[in-house]
C-alpha cells in the first residue's frame, strides 16, 4: 500500500497479433461463402463465368449502343436497343388513347388510389375502421365518374380511350376493392351451417371461379355475355370484363378468407356471443378484422396475381399495356421489329410494381406477426 511496495513486475500484454488472414476480411468471407468445398467452388465458378459471358453484351445492348432520343423510327441509329420506340409511344403505353389534355384526370385517379390504399397508414387511429372502408368502397365510383367525366361536366371520354398501364393498375385496384367484400360474403355463405342452399350456391360460385382459367372467363365476357342481355341492351365491353374480374377476384378472396377463418380461435365467437353481439356484429366487429389481419399476406399475393393477370386482356383485345405495345409494333411507321424493347419495358414496369408490392407485403407480415418477437 505504501510507496515502497511498488510491484517489481507489471504484466504488460503484448499487442494482439492480427487475426489470421484466413478467418477475417474479404478473403475469409470468400472462403466461407464461396469456396467451401469442391462442389461450391465449381458452382461459384460456373455462375461467375455464366454471368461474365452474358452481362457485358446485355449492358451494351441496353445502354451503350442503344438509341435514346428522337421521335421517329429513323432516329434508331444505334446497333443496340431502340428506346426511341418506347419514348414515342410512352403516352399510349401509360394512358391509352385518353385525350392528352385530359390526362390529369387519370393522374388524379392514380393519386386517389394510392391515397385510399394507404389510408390505414395515415388515417388517425379512431377513424380507421369506419372511414377506411367507406373510402375504399367509394373509390371505384369516384374513379369511374372522374374518368368518364359526364357527371362532373368535364369532357366525356368513352371507355374506348381508357387504356395503357394506368388502366391495368386501376382495373386491378377496383376489381380488388369490389372483389374483397363480395368474396367475404361468399366465404361467410360457405361457412353457414343453417342454410344449406346458400352454402352450396357459394361453394359452386367459389369453386367455379377458382377452377377455370381466367382467359376462358374473359372469353365468356367478350363473346358470350352479350348474348345474355335482352335484345337492344348493350353492355360496354369494359364493364363486362370488369364484372368477370370482380367475380374472379371474389372466388380467390373467398378461399383466402377461408384460411383466415380457420385461424380464428373458437373462444372469439363464444366471447362475442356472451357479450350479446348479433351475428353481423360478431362477424363485422370481431371476426372480420382478425381474418383480414391473418390473411393479409395472402390478400396481397392475390392482388399481385390479379394485377399480373390483367395482361391476359391482350388476348381479347382490350387496350391494356401489352395490347397497346403490340398495336404499336404493328404500326406501319414503326415496322422495324422492336418487340424486345417493348416486352422488356413492359416487363420492367410490371416487375417494379409487383416487387414493390411484395416488399410491402413482407413489411406488413413482419409488422402483424405478433407471435414471434
Amino acid at each position, binding site marked *: 500500500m505504501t510507496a515502497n511496495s511498488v510491484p517489481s513486475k507489471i504484466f504488460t500484454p503484448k499487442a494482439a497479433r492480427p487475426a489470421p488472414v484466413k478467418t477475417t476480411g474479404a478473403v475469409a468471407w470468400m472462403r466461407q461463402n464461396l469456396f467451401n468445398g469442391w462442389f461450391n467452388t465449381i458452382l461459384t465458378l460456373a455462375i461467375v463465368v455464366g454471368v461474365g459471358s452474358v452481362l457485358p453484351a446485355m449492358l451494351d445492348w441496353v445502354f451503350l449502343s442503344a438509341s435514346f432520343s428522337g421521335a421517329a423510327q429513323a432516329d434508331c441509329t444505334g446497333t443496340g436497343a431502340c428506346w426511341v420506340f418506347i419514348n*414515342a*409511344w410512352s*403516352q*399510349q403505353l401509360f394512358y*391509352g*388513347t*385518353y385525350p*392528352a389534355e385530359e390526362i390529369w384526370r387519370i393522374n388524379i385517379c392514380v393519386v386517389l388510389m394510392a391515397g385510399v390504399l394507404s389510408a390505414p397508414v395515415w388515417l388517425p387511429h379512431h377513424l380507421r375502421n369506419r372511414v377506411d372502408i367507406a373510402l375504399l*368502397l*367509394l373509390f*371505384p*365510383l369516384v374513379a*369511374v*365518374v372522374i374518368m*368518364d367525366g*359526364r*357527371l362532373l361536366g368535364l369532357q366525356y371520354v*368513352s*371507355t*374506348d*380511350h381508357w387504356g395503357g398501364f394506368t388502366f391495368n393498375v386501376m382495373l386491378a385496384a377496383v376489381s380488388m376493392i369490389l372483389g374483397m367484400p363480395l368474396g367475404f360474403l361468399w366465404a361467410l355463405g360457405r361457412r353457414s351451417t343453417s342454410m344449406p342452399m346458400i352454402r352450396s350456391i357459394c361453394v359452386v360460385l367459389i369453386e367455379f371461379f377458382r377452377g377455370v382459367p381466367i382467359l376462358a372467363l374473359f*372469353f365468356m365476357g*367478350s*363473346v358470350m355475355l*352479350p*348474348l345474355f*342481355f335482352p335484345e*337492344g*341492351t*348493350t*353492355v*360496354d*365491353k*369494359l*364493364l363486362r370484363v370488369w364484372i368477370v374480374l370482380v367475380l374472379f377476384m371474389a372466388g380467390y378472396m373467398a378461399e383466402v378468407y377461408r384460411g383466415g377463418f380457420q385461424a380464428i380461435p373458437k373462444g372469439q365467437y363464444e366471447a362475442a356471443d356472451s357479450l350479446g353481439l348479433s351475428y353481423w356484429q360478431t362477424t363485422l366487429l370481431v371476426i372480420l378484422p382478425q381474418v383480414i389481419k391473418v390473411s393479409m399476406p395472402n390478400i396481397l399475393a392475390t392482388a399481385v396475381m390479379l394485377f399480373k393477370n390483367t395482361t391476359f386482356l391482350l*388476348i*381479347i*383485345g382490350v*387496350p391494356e399495356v401489352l*395490347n397497346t405495345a*403490340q*398495336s*404499336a*409494333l*404493328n*404500326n*406501319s*411507321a414503326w*415496322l*422495324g*421489329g422492336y*418487340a424486345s424493347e417493348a416486352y422488356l419495358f413492359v416487363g420492367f414496369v410490371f416487375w417494379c410494381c409487383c416487387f414493390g408490392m411484395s416488399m410491402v407485403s413482407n413489411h406488413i407480415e413482419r409488422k402483424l406477426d405478433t407471435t414471434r418477437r
Partner: protein
Amino acid sequence: MLKKTAMLAIGLTAGVSLSAQAGTLEDVQKRGVVSCGVSTGLAGFSQKDEKGQWSGMDVDVCRAVAAAVFGDDTKVQYKPLTAKERFTALQSGEVDILSRNTTWTQSRDTSLGLNFVGVNYYDGQGFMVSKKLGVKSALELDGATVCIQAGTTTELNLADYFRANGLKYTAITFDTSDQTRAAFESGRCDVLTSDQSQLYALRIGLQKPDEAIVLPEVISKEPLGPAVRQGDDVWFNIAKWSLAAMIEAESLGITSKNAADLVASGTPDQKRFLGVEGDFGKNMGISNDWAKNITLKVGNYGESFERNVGQGSPLKIARGLNAQWNQGGILYSWPIR
C-alpha cells in the same frame, strides 16, 4: 346499401346503353357519333398512331359514314374488336357498322343477321417465302411449314389448296400479325400465308424485306367489306352509298382538293354528286351535301388507297384489282343520279 345502389346506377349509366328500338340513324344522330368496329391493329387498314389517331382503309369507311351523317369525319367512336367478337358486337348493337377487314361470304351474309354493304378492298390469300429457298411457285411447297395468321377463312383455304394439289404441310397458327411476322423472320416456318394486302405489310416489317418474295398464286377470293345489321334499310343505304360515293368520286375525277371548286365549275355529273343539284341526300334522310362532305374530309377512294396502303404509305401496294374498271381493275360504283 344506398352506396351499392348508387354505384350500380353509375355503372349502368357508364356502361350499359339501351338502344331505343328506333332506327340506327336516329340512334346515331342522338348519340352524336358513329360507333365503328375496327380491327385491333392491322397495318394500312386500321391502326392507331402515337397520338391515338386512327387511320387506314377500313377506318376511312367509318369516317366517310360520319362525314355523310354529320358532315364531320371525326365523329366516330372506334371500337377495336378481335376476330371472334366482331359479329356479336354488330349484332348486339355495340357498333353501328363493322369495318374490320371482313370477307364477304354467303354464309355470313345470310346466317349471321348482317348485311355487307359493298367491297372496299378486293383481296386474296397468297404466300410469302424467303428468297433463299429458291421457290417460284406455291406448287413447290411440298413438306413446308406454313405460318398462318389466324383468320376465319385462312386456315380452311390453306388446307383446301394443299389437299387439292396433293401437297403435305405443317401449319402454325398465330393470333396477331406481329407474331406471325416474328415467327417467319426467325425461320420457324418456310412460308407465310395471309391475305395479299397483309403480306405486303408484313414484308415491309421484316428486317430485310428484299429477302422475301410474295408468290404469284392467289388461292382464294377475299372481297373485304363493311357490314351493318340486317333489317335497317335506312342505315344500310347510308353505309352502302357512303362507300359507293368514295369510289364514284374517283371515277368522276373529284378529289378532296378540287371538290370545293367543282361545286361551281363542275360538269352536271359532278354537280349532282356534290349536292348542287337533286335531293340525293334527303332521300336517305341526311343532308344533300353528304357526298361532298365525304370527299372533302376523307377524299375519294383513290386518295384513301394511296394514303393508306399505296404509294403514299410504307406498304406501296399496287392498285391491281382495286383500280377503277376502266383502268384495269374491277371497281365499278353505281351512278349517283
